[in-house]
């Protein structure tokens, strides 16, 4: 296996982290989180890849032909479903925040800390 998928996964994760740290908008933040998540997909698919092997479907060729690892693909599929649920939840929270506070900038939104204007 080449080094490329590992490097791509690490790079995607680093880029996503950078975005998370510097983001000034909740929706952008959710997007960065998804980038981090795709790093794990690349990593998993890279782990299961077998050179010059077909898909793990034995409908039209006999069992025993080389195939990529179907287990990691099942993992990725499971995680895509969970990831969609988390993203949906985060976006729903973002909508509620926008309704209540009129902003989505994390700098202006801090739990348990009253905004400067409302400080007593």
């Amino acid at each position, binding site marked *: 296996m080449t080094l490329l998928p590992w490097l791509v*996964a690490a790079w995607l994760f680093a880029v996503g*982290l950078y975005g*998370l*740290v*510097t*983001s000034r908008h*909740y929706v952008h*933040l959710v997007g960065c*989180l998804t980038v*981090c*998540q795709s*790093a*794990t997909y690349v*990593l*998993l698919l890279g*782990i299961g890849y077998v050179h010059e092997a077909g898909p793990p479907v034995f409908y039209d060729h006999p069992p025993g032909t080389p195939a990529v690892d179907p*287990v*990691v693909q099942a*993992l990725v599929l*499971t*995680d895509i479903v*969970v990831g969609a*649920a*988390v993203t949906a*939840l*985060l976006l729903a*929270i*973002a909508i*509620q*925040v926008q309704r*209540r*506070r009129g902003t989505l900038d*994390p*700098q202006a*939104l*801090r*739990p*348990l*800390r*009253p905004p400067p204007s409302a400080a007593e």
Partner: protein
Amino acid sequence: MSLAETLLPVAVLLPLGVATLLLALAHWLPPRLPKLVAILVALAVCAFCVLLARASLDGPVRHWFGGWTPDAAGRPGVVLGIGFQADPASAALAAFCGLLFAAAFVFAWGYFDTEHAHFHVLMLLFLAAMTGFCLTRDLFNLFVWFELMSVAAFALTAYPLGRSALEGAFNFTITNALASFLLLAGTGLLYARTGTFDFATMGAALARTGADPVLIAGFVLVAAALLTKAAILPFHLWLADAHAVAPSPVSVIFSGAMVSLALFGLAKLVAQVFPGNAEVMGLVHGLLHGLGLATALVAGLTAFAQRHLKRLLAFSTIAHMGIMLTALADGSGTATAGLLLYILGHGLTKGALFMAAGILLALRRSADEIVLYGRGRGLWAPALATGLGGLLLGGLPLGLMHGATGLMDLSAGVLDRVVVALASALTGAAVLRAAARIFLRASGVPGPELLAPTEREHEKPDRPLWLMALPALTLVALALVPPAAVRPFLGAAAARLRDPSLPPLALPEAGSLDLAPLLLTAVLFAFALLRRRAVRPLSRAVTRSERTGFRALQALHSGLVGDYVAWMAVGLALFALAAAVSAG
């Protein structure tokens, strides 16, 4: 398969099935029925897991889903099926979760608008995820329960849809979703080298392979994910936000069970999967031990400087997680027994304390100890729960937590014992100080806690006091059970967490009465009570430097999700550095 083995998945399927049914039928059911059903289901899970724990004393209870036993693949060493396994410790912890959920359901009676029973559906989902997390013996399955637990927890935190609740839930979701990606990546790396997800098979494969950077990276990622959930420095920053803003009955579960369950998961992995890998065990004994000590100290100090009762309790939870991590890093049989007992004792105590805070939020419309000054007089039940809870956290030589500390001390060094005593004393004194202010109208002038973040909020007061006080007092009473009552079971549980075939560990009788933490608590408490305004130049200088120090601690907990993620990256770098040092 025996009857227990066939029925093992019921512990998960019951809450999961009832949750779906409630969701489908909530429109037609009378509004009180879901509440009653939820309490009964939690109690049933508790009872079933107690039976499982008893049955597993004769040997582990295993269930392979769909009949995919390890032999089913026809190739030795290849495990395709997903298995559940109840050993005494796992089943007992699942039973404890059921008990805590039942108490939280009673406490939350009438709290929520239950027209559609959403709260109870989410909570039952949460319970199913926790029992699954306890009982699984498959790393990927563990990840799935971890995710399910997280998603239920995210939604429950945001449930009140208040300002702080939404923002706290957002920070919680981002950091913990990131943690679950780390867990998945780590799982993938471990699979790449061992070709299996089954704990036992993976452990055997790891013992054969020897040193390998991919395996260490896999462990680091898995550990970082579980430590994020368990709120260990520097991954802990989300916890104070989430626990302080979640509805009180949910905070009870968060602090009492969710975070310590993550630590239990890590303990189980370290005991069953990694004992054959010297590098990983080096990381556990070295880095994790240091992180535990640092967490206990930093969070203990921060807890002492809080004024919002739920935030104070949240930091105290982090400090106690640090104490538990030192026991995990120690790894000896008695330390593991101490860890298991500490999870129970701390969960019961912390659950009761959060309920007391919830009572104040409902009846006195605040959780700020300075705003509430003297306003809790006449509320004897929450006063009793808070006072006893504070004493138990601070090292009262009675009950489960003290027994657990005694077991942990058997193999702990001097430094460990000093840090544990100091952290316990700081958290205990902080709770007692708040109790004295609120219920007795007794205190000196506020110290650094005056600068701590707080909020005006309240919870719905539409239920009688006794209904809220009953579960709180029950939990405190259970935390006061003498540890001798559970000692034989604990010996078997600690030994079989590592290897199901080991004979029960003979735990020593209660050692010498260690009063040092309690004395330290008394000193700190007296210091808070007798504090006067700084008038003389010397005392003013001391106060000023004290404030500067605590302000730096508060600034660390900035409430900005970007900062939290940056600290998580720092934590990962720390792990990588430690791994490189130990390998090179």
